[in-house]
């Protein structure tokens, strides 16, 4: 009898890289990675060499030069003497603004339409089906242009508000709906607590956040009471007071007044103005993406077993509460992952802003700056970087939220 020995150590042979399934997949991945890296290096090198041969080079120094053009909608200080980088920033903020607004409204439209499409009311569900199918199946660019064209064609120009007998008049004497956008009064503080308007507004926001916390606390206390005694104290009045009293007091102290828009020589001035392009783009993106979100919501709700509804009904819950307390929280797990894609789509589709003259980043950096400087490659690379970063950030944020609502498995 021979003694037991260790099994012979499989010595590694080069052929195993191809023949051994343990290594094969790795081998091919490494080869693929090298080939891709080499191709990118080759193409990039080719680009740089050719540019150099043509006397050009990749340079971002143009970003510091004076842009020379004006932008109609700007969230930060900007004039034609500002740099191209500043113009890009203005565009970036405009992109983020319209994307943020559209994400919120698209979600609202989507959830309402998605829930109503499953309604037992034949008319309501069919109406929602028509909405979803019409908007989903026509490209968003067409919707943007249709909505913008209708706005400029249907709404009156400012000149219609002029004269002894104007054909149009301002709503409540302070709102003007024109084909250049909507003009409405701007709140101002006659005797603000701080010199700067921004600080005053921060104070208002701080007070509102405080109210939100306190009212949340009231709600919690009510739930606790309910769990202990079975009776839920009325929370509506206290919550109303918590929201209103500090806010109204603050407004009285700071002396709230309204700056009402006025018709000047060419245009309305004063007050606030939501430009036509912004409204058209915002509305078009919301209503278009809303249709997709409606389908996600419908899928999410249908993924929940009917038994859940029946069980909840057996407990005596009403329809609305079944949806709110039982179905939607579970459906969220199915709804959120595709919802992330829709938010990304909104952000990317906002680049169609140029169709209606909205100054987003594609219009400023990728449009005018590119055109004026001729630095196409640099501008497009920057644009790619921006959209990539924005998409990854939105995706990360939403994935964190998803992780917090998804089924906890232990």
């Amino acid at each position, binding site marked *: 009898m021979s003694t037991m020995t260790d099994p012979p150590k499989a010595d590694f042979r080069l052929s195993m890289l191809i023949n051994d399934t343990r290594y094969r997949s790795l081998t091919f991945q490494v080869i693929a990675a090298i080939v*891709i890296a080499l191709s990118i290096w080759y193409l990039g090198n080719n680009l740089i060499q050719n540019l150099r041969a*043509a006397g050009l080079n990749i340079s971002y120094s143009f970003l510091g030069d004076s842009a020379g053009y004006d932008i109609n909608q700007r969230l930060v200080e900007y004039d034609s003497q500002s740099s191209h980088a500043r113009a890009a920033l203005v565009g970036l903020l405009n992109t983020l603004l319209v994307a943020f607004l559209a994400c919120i409204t698209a979600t609202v439209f989507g959830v309402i339409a998605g829930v109503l499409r499953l309604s037992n009311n034949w008319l309501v569900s069919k109406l929602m089906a028509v909405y979803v199918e019409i908007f989903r199946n026509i490209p968003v660019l067409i919707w943007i242009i249709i909505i913008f064209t209708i706005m*400029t064609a249907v709404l009156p120009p400012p000149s219609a508000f002029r004269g002894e007998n104007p054909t149009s008049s301002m709503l409540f004497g302070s709102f003007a709906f024109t084909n250049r956008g909507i003009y409405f009064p701007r709140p101002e503080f006659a005797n603000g607590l701080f010199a700067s308007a921004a600080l005053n507004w921060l104070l208002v926001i701080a007070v509102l956040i405080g109210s939100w916390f306190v009212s949340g606390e009231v709600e919690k206390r009510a739930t606790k009471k309910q769990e202990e005694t079975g009776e839920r104290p009325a929370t509506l009045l206290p919550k109303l007071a918590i929201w209103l009293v500090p806010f109204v007091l603050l407004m009285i102290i700071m002396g709230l007044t309204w700056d009402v828009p006025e018709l000047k020589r060419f245009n309305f001035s004063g007050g606030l103005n939501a430009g036509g392009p912004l409204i058209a783009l915002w509305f078009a993106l919301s209503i278009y993406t809303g249709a997709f979100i409606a389908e996600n919501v419908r899928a999410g709700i249908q993924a929940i077993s009917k038994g859940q509804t029946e069980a909840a009904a057996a407990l005596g819950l009403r329809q609305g509460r079944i949806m709110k307390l039982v179905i939607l929280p579970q459906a969220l797990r199915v709804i959120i992952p595709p919802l992330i894609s829709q938010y990304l789509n909104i952000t990317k589709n906002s680049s169609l802003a140029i*169709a209606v003259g909205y100054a987003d980043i594609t219009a400023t950096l990728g449009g005018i700056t590119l055109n004026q400087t001729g630095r196409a490659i640099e501008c497009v690379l920057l644009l790619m970087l921006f959209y990539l970063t924005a998409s990854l950030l939105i995706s990360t944020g939403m994935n964190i939220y998803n992780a917090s609502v998804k089924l906890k498995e232990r």
Partner: protein
Amino acid sequence: MKKSVFLGAATIAGLAAGAAMAGTVDDVKARGKLNCGVTTGLVGFAAPDANGEWQGFDVSLCRAVAAAVLGDANAVEFVPTTGKTRFTALASGEIDMLARNTTWTFSRDVDLKFEFTGVNYYDGQGFMVPKALGVSSAKELDGARVCIQTGTTTELNLADFFRANNISYEPVPIETNAEAQQQYLAGACDVYTTDASGLAATRATFEAPDEHILLPEIISKEPLGPLVRHGDHEWGDVVRWTLNALISAEELGVTSANIDELSAGTDNPEINRLLGTEGTLGEMLGLDADWAAKAIKAGGNYGEIFAKNIGEETPIGLARGLNAQWTEGGLLYSPPFR
């Protein structure tokens, strides 16, 4: 993700790959076709007609160059370019020359490494407003909304003009002339500004042209001309002297009607040199002796091309103005053919 980066890089590199070539004349001859960049469509300057044939003022220049180099005015591949793609198309070698009402500016010439080979249309930026506004000068436009095509030199001039006069305005960026027209007529903007020739052409298409006026201020110089890549001087010479031949032909009275007769030889040595019956100008350019004669035959001399496409007899209805010959008080002046 990897894939899209790869494809993106491939596209950019592919575009740039052609950039470094020299000897465009030889390339064009070998290809048997001239790649000429034009606008995507501006009636009078470059637009396909009902039969799909490109017609227009800029198009005629492409045809003249093709005729000079290849002897065939139809050996042109027209590449429609937008304000955004025009320079990339030229720099990458996708097109051999760009004839697309492009303003000759310092930075385009020097920084973008292009070479403007002359001016085929002297223009300037103007303003159009509805008469009802009661405006008689651009300096009264404080607070107005101005429709402006983005990415053009007019956009920069506009900002400079309002800044210099210390008045404010609100720009309404638009992409195309058609869009501007719609916005302007709907009253979404008070003023439309672009090159004066474009304003005239646009106003001519209105239902009631009388209700709109062009303000007297011309706020910029807009010399529009063909351009080629920097560094290929032989090719630059061909395009430059083809344009000069068309201008000289008008000055010397050479037209498409009498060119056959004049090609037999005349008493005027400059006409003889131009048409190749005397001297070796064609050889110096590396072309046939009758290169200029072919170019002129393609669409007529400068005056004929102007009259046929944008002149006062056409719907565009532009007067010669600055674009008259120097002998008639205009700016057109070709260096001598000798």
